């Protein structure tokens, strides 16, 4: 693994484009640079109230007494609401914003706890007051008594007989079973079986912008909520909770200061809706950082066991995989996170005989839900360490073991889903390894290790969610372009990609395109900014909207210029004859011509993802996603054998993104995703002890600073084989997936032993070294 030659790339023929692929300055960049962009917490209104939330300080208890009369009596308090006032309303978070299926029965989180609290941080009461200080004072006047109930604080304990049950009938909130091929026959064919168990912690998203928003009731009686969210279509769930028609809730999204999945769940918006309706006044609620830690979703801890049957040459003949995920106190998106982990459990490898059994288990801890990768990264932490362990056991090169097992286009995943796009796993792995260059030599107390990991990660939502996206494009009379699209921009360049695509299709400079986004009432609904789906879904929708306009413009220009329609090209804000850019007609003149003849200059379009019917309940076989992205990351680490400190020396990531729409933005996704994954491996651990949070702020929960890691070298490949616009694949989530297992493999390479649990803290490193020494002596 010291020097690896990049595998030559297959020939691909990507059509040359004028704007797609360029690292253009994003349309949202300058506003953010000069501080002109307003985020949810920046909005205030006349006559506004300030809200606070009373939260449970205990992880498992019955609420024996809840008396809010003193708080209500405090002058300046507009309202205090408890579970009784919201009449048992639930957070319907199973299928945000889509047609989909019925919610799981009975275990959706209540908007406010009324009888029982199941985790530290669970909301119990809401206060709205004239000032923030008064709201805080009112919280202290709420009289509450708890009667402690036994709790469970790990999936292991939650699965024991006679364990306290969070929801009847048991603590298992989701379960999947995958059966493909003949496991027994496959294991019998193997020369040996390699078995390992890997563990991962809770993680906090730790985006810089705390959740927040402001709500008011407008002159039509519609409840307006301005909020930072990945899902403006939660208006449906909020309407259901309030018992009002869906067209009486309007969500006006803002630029989101980071989401990474946690702003996929409903947070402040449902509290704001209740308080605004109750008081008839604008209400503002912004979480503190500590509230953020206590009250929002975390990444699922997983324990994953692989039993892999292999031939001596490294070929996998069978695999048996067991996964246990901690869902925390309420399921939220756990059933789907578990499905993702299950469907991607075997990695980008062809395994004909495989069983996967997975469960998500309720505990009295902070709930877990979506976090960039949605179970895919946890699966990768396990399957990629297992690949290296197989190589070690067989005394083979880790790259060779992978080479013999990599899926090829046309092969199927463990659920039998055929991969139809390019699979450049080896191309990516060899480039990432090559980029590390010469190996740094060991010193007496510094052991150098190298490792890499492959990954595959879906993009687009689960195909039985019946996912759709809408986009509207129109040209103004001066030739400038307007997009209306409900896409929430969470910082990854979602808006910019759409602008850049339309600029390409209509042949105008990017600066001439303006986008209005993320308003559930005024912008056509574009679905969630989750699941790495916006470029794929809304990118395709915007092509469906812009292409007919381009075609009408070309038709009219052709008539004007006396040539055939296919002789016309749009570019530089004019329609000209192919090969003669100075010919033709200015776009603004062409638009006026069209307008005077009633030719339509706007278009609303809908893109539908492929729809499927779900998995076979007995075998877990079937399609789950529209397509997959393949990538790899390689790192070099230095482990200080005296202090246990790990220093990351080099990192390189290579991904086939299908087609890069904005090169700088793609670079940013890969570099940033890598950094989060490196933090996963080396630093981050949201710790709970008996349900109590031990890392309640950014002073205890450490995320990478600019000093912790060198920049990851980013290598972008373009197979053009994706199902997104211009052959693009999604990169938002996949960028994170290979980073942590690459570090795990590098650390194992340095130490000679494997640390079974992330993150690799100095303490765990020293323990592993001690164990290795004892085992060796």
């Amino acid at each position, binding site marked *: 693994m010291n020097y690896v030659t990049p595998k030559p790339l297959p020939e691909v023929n*990507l059509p040359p484009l004028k704007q797609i692929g360029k*690292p253009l300055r*994003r349309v949202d*960049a300058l506003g*953010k640079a000069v501080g002109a962009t307003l985020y949810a917490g920046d909005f205030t209104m006349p006559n506004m109230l300030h809200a606070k939330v009373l939260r449970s300080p205990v992880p498992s208890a019955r609420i024996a007494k809840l008396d809010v009369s003193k708080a209500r009596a405090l002058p*300046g308090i507009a309202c205090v609401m408890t579970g009784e006032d919201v009449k048992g309303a639930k957070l319907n978070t199973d299928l945000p914003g889509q047609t989909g299926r019925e919610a799981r029965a009975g275990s959706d989180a209540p908007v406010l706890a009324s009888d029982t609290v199941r985790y530290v941080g669970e909301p119990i009461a809401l206060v709205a007051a004239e000032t923030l200080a008064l709201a805080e004072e009112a919280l202290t006047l709420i009289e509450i008594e708890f009667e402690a109930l036994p709790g469970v604080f790990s999936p292991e304990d939650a699965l024991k007989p006679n364990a306290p049950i969070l929801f009847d009938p048991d603590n298992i909130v989701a379960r999947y079973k995958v059966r493909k091929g003949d496991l027994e026959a496959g294991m019998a064919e193997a020369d040996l079986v390699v078995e390992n168990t890997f563990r991962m912690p809770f993680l906090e998203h730790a985006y810089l912008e705390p959740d927040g928003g402001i709500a008011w009731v407008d002159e039509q009686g519609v409840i307006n909520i301005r909020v930072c969210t990945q899902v403006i279509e939660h208006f449906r769930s909020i309407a259901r909770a309030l018992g009002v028609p869906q067209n009486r809730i309007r969500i006006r999204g803002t630029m989101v200061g*980071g989401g990474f999945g946690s702003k996929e769940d409903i947070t402040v918006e449902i509290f704001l809706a209740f308080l605004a309706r109750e008081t008839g006044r604008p209400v503002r609620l912004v979480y503190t950082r500590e509230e953020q830690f206590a009250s929002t979703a975390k990444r699922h801890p997983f324990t994953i066991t692989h039993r892999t049957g292999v031939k001596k040459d490294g070929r996998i003949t069978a695999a048996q995989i067991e996964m246990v995920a901690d869902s925390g106190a309420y399921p939220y998106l756990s059933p789907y996170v578990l499905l993702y982990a299950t469907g991607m459990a075997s990695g980008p490898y062809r395994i004909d005989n495989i069983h996967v059994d997975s469960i998500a288990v309720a505990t009295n801890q902070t709930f877990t839900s979506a976090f960039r990768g949605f179970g895919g990264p946890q699966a990768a932490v396990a399957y990629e360490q297992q690949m290296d362990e197989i190589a070690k056991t067989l005394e083979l090169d880790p790259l060779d073991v992978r080479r013999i097992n990599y899926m090829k286009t046309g092969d199927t995943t463990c659920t039998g889903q055929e991969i139809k796009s390019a699979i450049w796993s080896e191309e990516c792995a060899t480039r990432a390894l090559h980029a590390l260059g010469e190996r740094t030599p060991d010193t007496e107390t510094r052991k150098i290790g190298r490792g890499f990991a492959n990954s595959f990660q879906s993009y687009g939502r689960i195909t039985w969610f019946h996912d759709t996206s809408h986009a509207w494009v129109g040209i103004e009379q001066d030739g400038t372009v307007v997009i209306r699209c409900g896409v929430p921009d969470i910082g990854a360049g979602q808006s910019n990609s759409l602008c850049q695509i339309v600029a390409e299709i209509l042949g105008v400079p990017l600066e001439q395109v303006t986008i209005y986004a993320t308003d559930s009432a005024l912008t056509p609904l574009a679905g969630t900014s989750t699941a790495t789906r916006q470029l794929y879904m809304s990118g395709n929708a915007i092509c469906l909207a812009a292409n007919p306009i381009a075609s009408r413009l070309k038709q009219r220009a052709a008539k004007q210029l006396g040539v055939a329609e296919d002789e016309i090209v749009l570019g530089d804000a004019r329609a000209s004859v192919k090969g003669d850019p100075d010919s033709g007609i200015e776009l603004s003149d062409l638009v006026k011509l069209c307008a005077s003849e009633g030719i339509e200059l706007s278009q609303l379009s809908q893109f539908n993802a492929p729809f499927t019917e779900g998995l076979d309940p007995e075998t877990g076989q079937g399609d789950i996603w529209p397509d997959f992205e393949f990538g790899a990351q390689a790192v070099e680490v230095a482990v200080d054998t005296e202090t246990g400190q790990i220093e990351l020396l080099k990192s390189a990531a290579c991904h086939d993104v299908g087609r890069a729409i904005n090169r700088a933005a793609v670079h940013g996704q890969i570099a940033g995703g890598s950094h989060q994954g490196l933090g996963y491996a080396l630093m981050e651990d949201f710790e709970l002890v008996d349900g109590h949070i031990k890392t309640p702020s950014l002073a205890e929960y450490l995320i990478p600073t600019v000093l912790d890691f060198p*920049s990851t070298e980013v290598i972008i490949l373009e197979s053009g084989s994706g199902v997104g616009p211009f052959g693009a694949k999604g990169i938002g989530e996949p960028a994170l997936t290979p980073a942590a297992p690459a570090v795990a493999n590098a650390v194992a390479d340095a130490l000679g032993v494997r640390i079974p649990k992330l993150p690799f803290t100095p303490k765990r490193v020293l323990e592993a070294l001690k164990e290795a020494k004892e085992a060796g002596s």
Partner: protein
Amino acid sequence: MTIQSTKVQIQLRVNGRVHDLLVEPNAILLHTLRDLGYTDVKNGCEIGECGACAVLMNGTSVNSCMVLAIQADGAEIVTNAGLGTLDKPHVIQEAFADAGAIQCGFCTPGMVISTKALLDRNPDPTEEEIREGLSGNLCRCTGYGQIVEAVQLAAERLARSSSSPSSSLREEGQEADPEDRLLASDGAKRGGEGS
């Protein structure tokens, strides 16, 4: 609310504007600035960990959540929005936009302020010095690499503008050359890998 008002008269000078205020002695500068409408000063953690609320106070970068409003009495405060606007962005702000250093943008105002403080005292920093200078500012999106590049780009542009006094900073910043440099380096990578 039986607390006796103990408000203190102070004067804040923010982005060239003067505010005469009565504030509580324990009022935090971050909150006071945001209440005055300086919403570009971001509230990320309130304990001095994230740097999103950084402002220049008499030329020094401080986390405004760690400063009492009364401590800023009479001081010259500059927030990110005080450095430039959409029409006249500061060279540093423009470099951040051009280098792809901005994703969600919530850390950006603080990053720009830290960059300003750094380049004011060290106009030609090494990468190590840049990283040291930004070490109080957290970013969860970018992995910092493009932010470091933005600071380098800003330093280059500032150096060129100071060596050609006839042109203003902004005109200098808009020259095609640095963008071409970014395009060229990315384009070269693509040429080597894409086809």
